[in-house]
Each structure stands twice: as structure tokens, then as C-alpha cells.
């Protein structure tokens, strides 16, 4: 597997969530993802971008186009926020410290093929998702 292209989208405030959706959609279209697969990845990206901005105080998204035996897209969301003290709890549906539905993390995980989250208290959170074509 090789990374064919990489780009970075800054996440600062709420309109950036819309920018992330647009850009992820464009990349997924370019790589020939089906409409359902595009929609799943864009929806997961929207949830994670919002988490990054609202709970993590913003950061950046790195978009990687993967090719080789399989074609895919990997999205890495990184923030320098307070971190998540209990990841298992945060992954659970219905859990939220904010005003959301608490579906962001668990929901995003169900919409992609690979999901990884690393969080350190006081240092920030990194969420990596991959969806294969």
C-alpha cells in the first residue's frame, strides 16, 4: 500500500466542518467511491471534524489517498485539546459531555472499515479512520 497523495485541512471553527465534507466528498468521487460509500465517509468525517473543533478546540485533518492492492482514503483528525479521559465510555452511544446526541465517535466507527483513537490527557486526541473502496 502506498500513499498516493496527502493534503491537510485546518480545523478552526464551525464553517470548517462544511469545508471538510466538501473536500472529502471530492477526493472520494475522484477515487471512484460509490455514492453510498462517499456518503458514509463524508458523514463520519463531519462527526469527527465537529468533535475536533467543539471538544478539542480545533486542529487539523490530514487526508491520504491510498492505493496499491486496494484503493482507500485515510483521514487523520488531530487536536491539541484536553484529551478524552475514558475512551471506552466516549465510544458508547448516547454518551456526551456536550449537547450532542453522543453518536459522533461510535457512529463514525460504524461508517468506516478501520478506526483508531489515541488520546492523552492534556495533550490531545488523534482519530484515524480508513474506508476502502
Amino acid at each position, binding site marked *: 500500500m502506498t500513499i498516493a497523495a496527502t493534503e491537510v485541512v485546518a480545523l478552526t471553527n*464551525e*464553517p470548517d*466542518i*462544511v469545508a471538510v*465534507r*466538501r473536500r472529502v*466528498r471530492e477526493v472520494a468521487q475522484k477515487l471512484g467511491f460509490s*455514492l*453510498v460509500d*462517499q*456518503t*458514509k465517509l*463524508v*458523514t463520519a468525517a*463531519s*462527526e469527527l471534524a*465537529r468533535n475536533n473543533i467543539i471538544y478539542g478546540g480545533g486542529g487539523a485533518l490530514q487526508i491520504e489517498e491510498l492505493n496499491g492492492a486496494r484503493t482507500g482514503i485515510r483521514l487523520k483528525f488531530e487536536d491539541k485539546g484536553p484529551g478524552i479521559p475514558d475512551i471506552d465510555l466516549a465510544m458508547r*452511544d448516547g454518551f456526551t459531555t456536550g449537547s*450532542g*446526541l453522543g*453518536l*459522533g465517535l*461510535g*457512529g463514525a466507527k*460504524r*461508517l468506516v472499515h478501520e478506526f483508531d483513537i489515541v488520546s492523552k490527557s492534556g495533550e490531545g486526541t488523534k482519530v484515524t479512520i480508513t474506508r476502502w473502496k
Partner: protein
Amino acid sequence: MEKIPILRMGDYLLVTIQVDMHDRLALTLQDDLTRAINETSAKGVLIDISSLEMVDSFIGRMLANIAAMSRVLDARTVVVGMQPAVAITLVELGLPLPGIRTALNVDAGMELLRNGKSNFKFGRPSR
């Protein structure tokens, strides 16, 4: 400020979401609609989301809130025109849309608002 227009047609309010729904716009629509239901004594609200390419948990919550608020104000809410890819994604996301009635298109949605049921059974009428 950007706003989504709310049209009045008889006893009903019609909203067509044609822009990329950012979070603040969703909250504005929620407030505007609640006010409009109150001012016009509308009996129902029809929200056309056929142009929406994605519904995430935030937009889903807005739709659920609108339905809940309009119910308290004695109006029904019907969401119409959800794209199939959006519906598939919503189910996998695990998003419950409590209290939201849906219809395939505006015609079926208006029927549902007027009679409380849809007469469309077989086939998919053109939009």
C-alpha cells in the same frame, strides 16, 4: 446572515433545504420555524431535504427538535425526499429520528400532513 426561507401555503409551512447545512444555519432554522409555527398557527411543516447530500447527527438532531417543538405547538412535521444513500448512512450511524414522519416526495408529504396518512402505496411517483 444566511437564512433558509420558510414558505407559507395555506395551513402549512414549507421549507426546502438547498444549501450545505452548517451547524449555525441549522440552529437558525430551528428557531425561525418554531417562531413561524407560532405566528401563523400552522397545522404542519413540510421539510424537503432532497438536496441534502448528507445528514449527520447534528442535522438529525435539528430535524428531531423541529418535530418535537412543532408537536408541542400542535403541528405535524413531515420530512420528505431523503436520498437513499443518506438513509442507508443514517441507519448505520445509529441515528434515531424520533417523532419524525417521512415521505418519499413533496406530494406524498402533503398528503400525509392533510390526512395523517399517505395514499402512495406502490411505485414511486415522480418528484
